[in-house]
């Protein structure tokens, strides 16, 4: 594990992250409506839902990359809206964010990508940074030869693992995963699932995983929250259609949940022909 810098201890009595009646609109389109979720320390929460239901928007709200139209996001009890720009930047060192496409910097080598947060936020010597980079590469199962490669020279699975290594560089207490297995083969999907479990085992790491992959969800989740696209909901219906354990999700009789779990098209093609749906 990366030895530095030490993570700030998290108060176990408080939810690490919580949203309170979170609503996000882009122009006239409402993407999230009245979302209230609390994530306990050390918990792995999986946010499930079909494409376009606002999962990624919710994840970006949790780290303050998207500001809600109303409602609030709290980190350790304090609203992100009450942080100044500088204080929010400092707070973000407590997060690791694994992006859907890895979002590695094209112009930097893999080693420089992983070292970026260490150079930005610590005063470690280059030799120490290099040692941490090697350790992180080993942890995510990448060979040392990739250090000098550019992101475009790696496969999708390797890029995702390098993105995870970068997210873990500051040893953050919270790690957010945006569609970590999208576009990967089944073996690499399982590898990423194993890595999420491994990160969780680092001691008290709180994880939020956004996915639509049921295999990963069942593998890593302590609790699952399922969102439904607002375009398919009545005006006053709650957007969170399920919150519970993976076993409870599998037992659910809600036709919307069953359709998602079983991956059935249902009447979607008919809806598309009629011009409805989200």
């Amino acid at each position, binding site marked *: 594990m990366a030895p530095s810098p030490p993570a700030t201890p998290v108060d176990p009595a408080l939810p690490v992250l919580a949203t309170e009646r979170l609503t996000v609109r882009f122009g006239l389109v409402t993407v999230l409506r009245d979302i209230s979720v609390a994530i306990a320390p050390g918990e792995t929460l999986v946010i499930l839902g079909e494409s376009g239901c606002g999962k990624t928007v919710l994840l970006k709200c949790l780290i303050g990359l998207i500001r809600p139209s109303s409602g609030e996001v709290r980190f350790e009890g304090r609203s992100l809206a009450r942080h100044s720009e500088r204080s929010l930047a400092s707070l973000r060192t407590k997060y690791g*964010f694994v992006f859907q496409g890895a979002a590695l910097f094209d*112009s930097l080598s893999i080693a420089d990508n992983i070292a970026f947060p260490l150079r930005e936020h610590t005063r470690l010597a280059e030799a120490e940074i290099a040692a941490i980079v090697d350790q992180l590469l080993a942890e995510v199962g990448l060979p040392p030869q990739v250090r000098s490669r550019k992101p475009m020279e790696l496969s999708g699975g390797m890029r995702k693992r390098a993105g995870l290594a970068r997210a873990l560089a500051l040893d953050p207490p919270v790690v957010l995963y945006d569609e970590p297995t999208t576009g990967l083969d089944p073996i690499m999907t399982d590898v990423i699932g194993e890595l999420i479990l491994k990160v969780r085992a680092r001691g008290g790491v709180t994880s939020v995983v956004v996915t639509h992959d049921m295999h990963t969800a069942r593998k890593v989740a302590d609790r699952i929250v399922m969102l439904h696209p607002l375009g398919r909901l009545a005006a006053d219906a709650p957007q969170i259609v399920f919150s519970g354990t993976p076993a409870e999700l599998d037992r659910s009789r809600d036709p919307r949940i069953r359709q998602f779990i079983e991956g059935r098209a249902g009447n979607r093609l008919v809806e598309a022909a009629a011009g409805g749906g989200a």
Partner: protein
Amino acid sequence: MATDPTTPVARLRGGFSDWIADRVADLGAFMLDRVAAVGDVAIFTFRTLGWIVARRQRRDVLVPAFYQIGVLSLPVVALTGLFIGMVLAVQSYAQFRALGLQTRLGSVINLSLVRELGPVLAATMLAGRVGSAMAAELGTMRVTEQIDALESMGANPVYYLVVPRFLGCLVLIPTLTVMADFMGVLGGYLYSHLVLGIDYHHYWTNSREYVDAFDFLMGIFKSFFFGAAIALVSCHHGFHSGHGAEGVGRAATNAFVHSFVLILILDLFLGMWLNNVHDFFRPEGPRRLL
């Protein structure tokens, strides 16, 4: 007199007033968008200037930006400068010969170059070569979430991505302008002397008489504004790029078009102001070329 709303005439009138109302609403929305865009660029500018003083840039970030903006732009600026000097000679010669003043060709070519064409040409080439590339690069970073990644790691994207490019354009555009001036002067002289047969002595004596340091410095002074405008407009377009290849392409195109328009507007107003400054220090009035 009340009109029956169901008649074809009333429907036509209603349709027309609705059409007018829609157009007024469209115009209002357009104006609001433009005002918001100007405000957005202003905030972007202040944030950029703020980060210049707030934190020193790292050498390993600055050097590649300077190389890309300055060194790689030199050949194209030199080449276009050379040709524009020759074109000026080609286009001015007939008029000057008709007046029997072809020996004064050097003064008009060199004055036009150092005051106007050198700075504007260098800025245009910079906007085309570097401005649109910056917008495309930052636009791609936006689309592939690399800018979000910077923010998520507690790093400021304006500090990392905009300030080095801004400083590169600001610091290096005067050198590109000097290069455009030099090559233009050289091209104008070579064509005038070798092709048009104008005497070396008359060409340079007249040039020296009518072009002074103020004219040269005026061009250099303007170039700082052009460089800043190119960097800010292009980076702003890149930061606010739309989705996908189409959005990035549009950002690159708009970066060039808006930079170019802004260069011309700045050139007009700076030219007017600098002429007043010139008149203040030389109350005898403008020098007469003819």
